[in-house]
């Protein structure tokens, strides 16, 4: 049960029970739905950027497993003040560090849903 206690630590469960950054933004610069097609985890992410391309605010809503929702909650806490380039440079080690646990291959997509959706949203912003 050691592995389970790592994955479902109090910090993760707390973010799952009371996810942060839930208040919708009035005028987001970009919104994107992120989905885990095999599992059905879903988040709706909103980002507010300033003219310099730095994230000033973030919000999300969603439903899914504890890992997907807590992972998104944790990552959204880290976004404010970061530039698009900084965020596009982040990868799974960053999320693992936030979660404080190495997530196995069957749950990695849950853990990365928040970061990957953020990166996709920022990519759409760049191409438009």
């Amino acid at each position, binding site marked *: 049960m050691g592995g*389970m206690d790592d994955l479902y630590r109090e910090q993760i469960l707390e973010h799952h029970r009371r996810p942060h950054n839930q208040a919708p933004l009035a005028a987001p610069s970009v919104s994107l739905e992120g989905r885990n097609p095999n599992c059905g985890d879903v988040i709706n992410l909103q980002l507010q950027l300033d003219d310099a391309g730095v994230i000033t605010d973030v919000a999300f809503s969603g439903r*899914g497993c*504890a*890992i997907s929702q807590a992972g998104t909650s944790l990552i959204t806490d880290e976004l404010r003040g970061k530039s698009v380039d900084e965020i596009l440079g982040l990868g799974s080690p960053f999320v693992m560090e936030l979660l404080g646990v190495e997530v196995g291959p069957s749950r990695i997509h849950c853990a990365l849903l928040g970061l990957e959706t953020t990166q996709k949203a920022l990519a759409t912003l760049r191409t438009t």
Partner: protein
Amino acid sequence: MGAWHNANGTLDPVKVRAAYPILATTPGGRPLHYLDSAATAQRPQRVVDAVSNYLLTANANPHRGSYTLGQMATEGYEGARARIAKYLNVPASELVMLGSATEALNLVARSWGKANLRRGDVVLVTEAEHHANLIPWQQITREMDADLEFIPVDDITGEILWDRLDSLMKLKPKIVAVGHVSNVLGSIAPLAQIAEAAHAVGALLCVDGCQAVANMPVSIPDLGADFYAFSAHKMGGLFSGGGLWARADLLAEMAPIETGGDMIRGVRLRDADFAEGTQRFEAGTPDASGAVALAAACDLLDEFGRDKIHAHESLMLERVLRELPEVLPDARILGPRDASQRAGLVAFSSDLVHAHDLAEILDRRGVAIRAGHHCAMPLHEQLELSASARVSVAPYTTNDDLDALFAGLRDARTVFER
């Protein structure tokens, strides 16, 4: 009663387990409690032996070799078709051997659908269908400018509202496509009633039998279906393999959707005549070893007795339905509460523990269940769920497996209630 039964004639799952070597393995160092047979059944040693034997002693290209070994290969393949046909109580001449049930349902939609659907025609399916019995109909109705209509489900339990059937028949559908047993709800469709209603307005009935063929007696002529699709790997056969039964007169009128070797009578440079019967739909070298495997699986399931399999599985499901609400009080059970209306599986959701988290925690005890939308996303949308947890049973499921399941559910409660 033979090797698999108790003295009173009921199936003994402990004896049955001996036929499936994987059940004695310990993946990740834990005893295996496999409760995901609805996704794929475990393979009996006998099936693997049958494949080995065929490939090591009778291997040649079926339908081609004029030499002795080639005839042995052909006999092995056609003998397997006959065995599988007998399992379903249909003539071998009406059984098309394909790669999967998905292929079978695509064949019906793309061949029968293309020839018979016109602009404004209606295809009727349920909101609970597996994607394999939904997307092919989405595609062909779009292509033919026909309409796709739905038999609705209850928003809370997900149960299919068959009492809407009569009013929906006023749409005069050309075909009604339903699952024999829902792969999420576990419910057995009232096929006799559906067939009568469909045929009364001139519609055909296409049945996805994937979740029925391994879990209960299935005699296709008694069902009233016009098409019946099934999958080998849910019966203990190989991953590759499945089939389509269709009424002979329908098969005779259907055009092949794949062409090539083995499905022809004569070929000229600019055109070709196609073979008759099932062969017309089996282009290319057939998966003969897969057919042989499935035939061996049919032998074993018949030795168990499908009525006895169904009775055993009903007992297991009854226990799940009874104890689940005690162990996980907020469990929302999808489908009927009565085990007698089910075959093979129970799916549920919980606001306390999401299905993925549940599957993860159960895995710590070696309990394997399915978490997700089970290839039925529209049904989950309708129920406002992102996923559900599915427990499915088999002839080899024991009370020991269910004990481990409930112990794991208690673990999950402990974690999420803390």
